[in-house]
């Protein structure tokens, strides 16, 4: 040890040169500068942006991750002079602010500062790369939602027929919220809204909107629908709406979610899974009012339909009654006609039969008369026979007379009165 001390002259130790830290740092700086002559492209994820508005400088922490494991990390610098230009171009092309979690491709030089150490000096960022990564991320989100079977879940809900109680996720001071409210106020319907204030864009949006949606979900039975309204702010900061966390929450929400979050040409995943994606807050209010109008129109239509069919039924029944009345008239007339005919026929029969009866009897009487006439003794007398009577009694046997009796002999046209002198009874013929 003493030997070593002895050799220590502040310049060397054990015959070897002692360097100051700045010597080493400068040496390293020179090595790095020799090795990294040119700028180069590097892809990485911004784990934390570290933007300082006061100075305008930005010191992003860059990482490369495999799943959640950090494979590499490095500090970076974007000087205020570059940052404004880079940010403007990035926002213009991607519609998104440079923010934590963003994957970037940047043009950088390797920089080593003796006092601050190693860092990448970012001179430019390629927005198209981030755009592609965001699109990939968006596709992954969509794929995950579909794999979980929840992509269409919110669309499959039934909207209340008369949506009059609306939970609004927005900011009370935003123009969009004001537009939404003014449309509702101007309508003739009483739509009740309840504001759940949230950050609607940028880094905090996902957490803030999610928290409010969870609050609404806890008392969802009081509402008919949820609207998410973002007013102003252009197309920037919409990437929050592509996050799986927010999109999944909207997709599985127990109420229909209606979005009115902006004018973007690219529809966000949250809008894709929402029950209805209206573009502007005005459209969102109109969508709700259309539902209310549709319900009321439908009521009117139903009322008209009921009235139409009821009146038609009455009309049909009235016609049926007319027909039945006509039928009754015809049938009655026919029946009465038949009855009259039958009565007339009966009268004819009676007349005919009565006359026949009278004629028959008359004829019988005539016949009897003829018969009686034929039996009159006058007809016998006319043929030369006579009738002998004594004291008005017809004499049929000789024993009925005695000599001296006065008898009447009736001829056909005369009566002879004579006295009996003698009665001679011829001898009886012997039977052969």
């Amino acid at each position: 040890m003493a030997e070593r001390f002895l050799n220590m002259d502040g310049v060397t130790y054990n015959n070897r040169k002692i360097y100051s830290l700045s010597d080493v740092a400068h040496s390293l700086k020179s090595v790095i500068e020799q090795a990294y002559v040119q700028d180069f492209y590097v892809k990485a994820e911004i784990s934390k942006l570290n933007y300082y508005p006061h100075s305008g400088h930005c010191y992003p922490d860059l990482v490369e991750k495999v799943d959640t494991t950090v494979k590499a990390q490095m500090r970076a610098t974007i000087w205020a002079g570059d940052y404004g230009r880079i940010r403007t171009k990035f926002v213009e092309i991607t519609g998104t602010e440079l923010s934590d979690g963003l994957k970037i491709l940047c043009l950088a030089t390797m920089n080593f500062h003796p006092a601050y150490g190693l860092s990448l000096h970012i001179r430019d960022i390629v927005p198209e790369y981030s755009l592609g990564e965001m699109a990939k991320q968006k596709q992954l989100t969509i794929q995950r939602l579909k794999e979980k079977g929840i992509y269409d879940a919110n669309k499959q809900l039934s909207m209340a027929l008369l949506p009059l109680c609306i939970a609004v996720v927005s900011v009370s001071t935003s123009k969009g919220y004001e537009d939404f409210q003014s449309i509702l106020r101007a309508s003739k319907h009483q739509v009740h809204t309840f504001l759940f204030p949230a950050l609607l864009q940028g880094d905090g949006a996902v957490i803030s909107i999610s928290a409010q949606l969870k609050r609404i979900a806890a008392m969802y039975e009081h509402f008919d629908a949820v609207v998410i309204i973002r007013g102003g702010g252009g197309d920037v900061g919409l990437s929050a709406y592509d996050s799986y966390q927010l999109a999944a929450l909207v997709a599985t929400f127990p109420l229909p979610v209606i979005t009115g979050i902006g004018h973007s040409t690219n529809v966000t995943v949250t809008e894709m899974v929402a029950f209805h994606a209206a573009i502007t807050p005005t459209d969102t209010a109109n969508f709700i009012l259309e539902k209310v109008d549709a319900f009321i129109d439908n009521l009117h239509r139903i009322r008209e339909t009921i009235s139409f069919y009821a009146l038609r039924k009455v009309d049909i029944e009235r016609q049926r009654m007319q027909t039945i009345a006509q039928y009754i008239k015809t049938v009655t007339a026919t029946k009465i006609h038949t009855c009259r005919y039958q009565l007339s026929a009966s009268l004819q029969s009676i007349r005919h039969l009565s006359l026949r009866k009278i004629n028959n009897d008359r004829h019988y009487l005539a016949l009897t008369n003829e018969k009686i006439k034929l039996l009159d003794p006058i007809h016998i007398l006319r043929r030369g026979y006579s009738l002998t009577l004594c004291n008005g009694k017809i004499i049929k046997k000789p024993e009925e007379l005695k000599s001296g009796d006065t008898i009447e002999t009736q001829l056909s046209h005369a009566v002879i009165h004579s006295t009996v002198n003698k009665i001679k009874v011829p001898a009886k013929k012997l039977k052969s």
Partner: protein
Amino acid sequence: MKKTYTEAYSELQDIVQSLENEDTDIDSLSTSIQRAIALINICNEKLALTEQEVQALVKQIEEQN
């Protein structure tokens, strides 16, 4: 009690049948015929009344509609 059309018509038919069968003697012929005419009158009155009533009712239905 006044006879119904059916009762009157039925009795009338009995008289006609009796005449057809020559069950009626001359003594009761006149009485039968008088009865028959009375029955025919009853029937005719009933028919006329029914006709009037039906026409009035049908007219009522038609006017209601």
